[in-house]
C-alpha cells in the first residue's frame, strides 16, 4: 500500500474484503457483508477507497476477489497468507503503514471460524474506536464521521465517531452493485508478502458441517395429567391482565398511554 499517494483533502478509506462462500453451492464468491461495505465506501463522497485482503491466491479465491474489482476498482492489495494463518498481524501492520481514516469490514466472515472478532482485535491493537452494524455513513467532516447504525426491529441509531475508526457493516446496508466482468478481468491483484502467524487454536478444534439444532421442547412441569394436558392444549393466555370496564374513553386512553410510556415505545 502506498501511504504517500493519499490526496490531502480526500478521505482515505480501506475496505477489508474476504472470500465468501455461497450458502447453497459452497463456491467462492464476494462475501455479502464485505460487498456491502465496498458499496458503502463507493457511496462516500470524495473518498479514496482501497481494498485489502489477507489470504491465499488460488483459482477459487481469485474469482471471488475479482468480483470486488468488478465494482469499479483498478487494484486490490493482497497480503499473502497460507491457509490456517492468523491474519491479524498482517492486516494490523498493513493498516498501520497505510494509515487510512476509515476502515470498513463485514461483521462475520463466511468461512473459517467466522467469529466476527477480527475488527475488534484490530481496533484494540490500533487503539481506534469501533462501531458495529452500520446501515449507512451519513457524512464525514473534520475528522468526525456521522454514522447510522442498524438496530434490531428495523430501528436506526445515529452516532458520531472520531476518526480514524473501524466500522462493521450490517446486512441492513444498501445491497452491493453488480460486479462488472470487464473491470473484474482488467483489475490488478497486488500480491504482497506479509508476516505469517499460524493459528494453532483453530487447528486443534474439530469442525464438522453444522448439525441441525434440536428443537426446544415445551417442558411442562405439572403435578397432574390434567395440568399437563391443559398446558399442552392451552391458548396463549396472559392471565391476570387488568380489565377496565365502565370507564370513559379518556380514562381508558390514559391507562393505555401510561403503559405505552412505561414500555418506552412512544417517542
Amino acid at each position, binding site marked *: 500500500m502506498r501511504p504517500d499517494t493519499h490526496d490531502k483533502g480526500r478521505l482515505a478509506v480501506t475496505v477489508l474484503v474476504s472470500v465468501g462462500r455461497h450458502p447453497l453451492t459452497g463456491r467462492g464468491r464476494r462475501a455479502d457483508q464485505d460487498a456491502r461495505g465496498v458499496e458503502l465506501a463507493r457511496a462516500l463522497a470524495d473518498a479514496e477507497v482501497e481494498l485489502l485482503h489477507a489470504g491465499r491466491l488460488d483459482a477459487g479465491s481469485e474469482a471471488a476477489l475479482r468480483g470486488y474489482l468488478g465494482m469499479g476498482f483498478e487494484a486490490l492489495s493482497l497480503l499473502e497468507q497460507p491457509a490456517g494463518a492468523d491474519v491479524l498481524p498482517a492486516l494490523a501492520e498493513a493498516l498501520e503503514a497505510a494509515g487510512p481514516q476509515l476502515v470498513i469490514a463485514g461483521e462475520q466472515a463466511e468461512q473459517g471460524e*467466522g467469529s466476527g472478532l477480527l475488527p475488534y482485535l484490530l481496533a484494540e491493537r490500533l487503539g481506534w474506536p469501533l462501531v458495529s452494524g452500520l446501515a449507512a455513513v451519513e457524512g464525514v467532516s473534520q475528522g468526525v464521521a456521522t454514522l447510522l*447504525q442498524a438496530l434490531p426491529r428495523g430501528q436506526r441509531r445515529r452516532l458520531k465517531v472520531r476518526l480514524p475508526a473501524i466500522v462493521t457493516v450490517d446486512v441492513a446496508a444498501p445491497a452491493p452493485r453488480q460486479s462488472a466482468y470487464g473491470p473484474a478481468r482488467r483489475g490488478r491483484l497486488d500480491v504482497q508478502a506479509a508476516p505469517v502467524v499460524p493459528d494453532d*487454536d483453530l487447528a486443534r478444534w474439530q469442525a464438522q458441517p453444522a448439525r441441525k439444532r434440536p428443537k426446544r421442547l415445551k417442558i411442562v412441569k405439572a403435578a397432574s395429567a390434567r395440568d399437563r394436558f391443559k398446558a399442552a392444549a392451552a391458548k*396463549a393466555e396472559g392471565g391476570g391482565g387488568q380489565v*377496565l370496564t365502565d370507564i370513559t*374513553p379518556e380514562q381508558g386512553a390514559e391507562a393505555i398511554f401510561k403503559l405505552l410510556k412505561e414500555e418506552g415505545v412512544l417517542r
Partner: protein
Amino acid sequence: MSDIRRRDPRKEWIARNRLHPRHLEVLAELGRSDGQGAASEWMGPHGLMRRNPHAVGFIGPNGVKRIDRSGVQQGQGSGGPQASTAASKPRVEIEAPAFLVAVVPDMAGGRLTGHDRDLLGLARRLADADPATPGAVLAVVFGEHKEDAFGEAGVDRLLHLAEPEVEGFAPEARLGALVAVEQAWTPRHWLLPDSKLGGADLGRRLAARLGERPATGVWQLEADAEAPSGWRCTARGAAGTLDFQRAMPRLILALAECAEPVSETHHAAQALALPEALPAQLARIEDLGQVAVDPAGVALSEAEFILSAGNGVRDWEGFHHAAEVLGATEGASRVAVDDGFMARHRQVGATGTWVTARVYVAVGISGAIQHLQGIQACDKVVAINMDPGCDMIKRADLAVIGDSTKVLEALVALVEQAREEKRNAA
C-alpha cells in the same frame, strides 16, 4: 370463624341416608363449610372418610357432567395450597461462593429477554456443576431496568450500574465497567448473549480487551474431563455452516436456547457494588439517539410496536391517524383484510405474519385462535374492545372496554397533548 371443626352426628347421619327428606339440604350445608357447592367428602362418625359421588364434579358447557380428578376442584377450593408458586420454589442462597460466573444480559426494553434467561440457565449449569464448591451467578445490568424477577431467573449476585455514562449506547463506558468487574472479582466464566441487541458487540469488545479468545455462537455445552476448564462447547461458525467442537474458553458468546432457563429454584439476587467508582473515560463514540424511522416501512414481523385493527374498527381514517401519531406499525385481523380495509401483508395470525412486537395493541379484535397464534411472542398486549368476555381480553395485559373510535381519539389527543407540553417545556 373458629378453626375447630364441630361434628354434628345427626347431620352426618342424614348425609349418609339418601332417603332422608332433608338429605340434599344437609349435604349442601356440609359442603358449604368447605367452600363448595355440595359436600363430596366428609369425616364419618368412625373416622372414615365418606364420599357423596353425586356431589362430585360440575356441569360442563354442553350440559354434561364433568368430573375433574386433578384435585383442583376438590379439597383445594379455598386459597391455602394454591399459594403463589414463586414462594414455594426452594430458595437457594450461596453465602461463600467458590467462584463467580459473570453474565451480562441484554435487558432489551429493561427486562430480561428469553435469550438472557437461557444464558442465566447456562450460567447456573456452570455454577452448580460441583455441589461441593458451588459458584455464584453474577449478573451485570446496565442502566434503568424494570425487571423484578432476577432471583427467579437464577441470579445470586446483582451488580446494577446506573451511572449516566453507561446509559444508552455507550459500549466504551460499559466495557470499562466490565473491566472493573474483572479486576474486582475475576469471574471464572464470562457469559454474554451473542445477539444483535448489544451482547455480541460488548462481548467481542471485552474479549479483545481481556485478550481472551472467546467461543462465539455457542449453542451446546458438555462436561469434558479432558478440557482444562472441564467443559467442551459446540460453536457455530462460518456463517452458520460449521460446528466447532472445542474446549470451553473463559469467555462465551452464546446463542439463544443454549440451555434451559432456570425454573425450579429461587435465588437471592443480592445486590453488589463495585469497590471503586467507574474510571472516567473519554467517549470517542457519541450517541445522537435513535432516528425516527417510518413505522410503515418496518416489516410487520420485526416491528416493535403494532397497532392492529379488527372488525371492531369503524373509523378507518381515525385508525390510520392514530397509528401515525403513536408511531406504530399497522397490523390487521383477517376480517379487516378480507373486507378490504387493510393490505394483505398487514394480516397478523396463523395465515398472516407471526409478529414479535414488544407492545401489541389490538383494536376491535375478538381474539380468534388463528389470530392469537400470531401474537404468541408479544410481550404486552393491550386490547380495546366492546365485549368484556372475548378471548383477546383474556390474553391482554391491559384491556379497555369501550368503543374503539372514542378510545383511539382520546389516546391521540393525549399523546399530542403530551408532545405539546414537552415542546413548550423545551
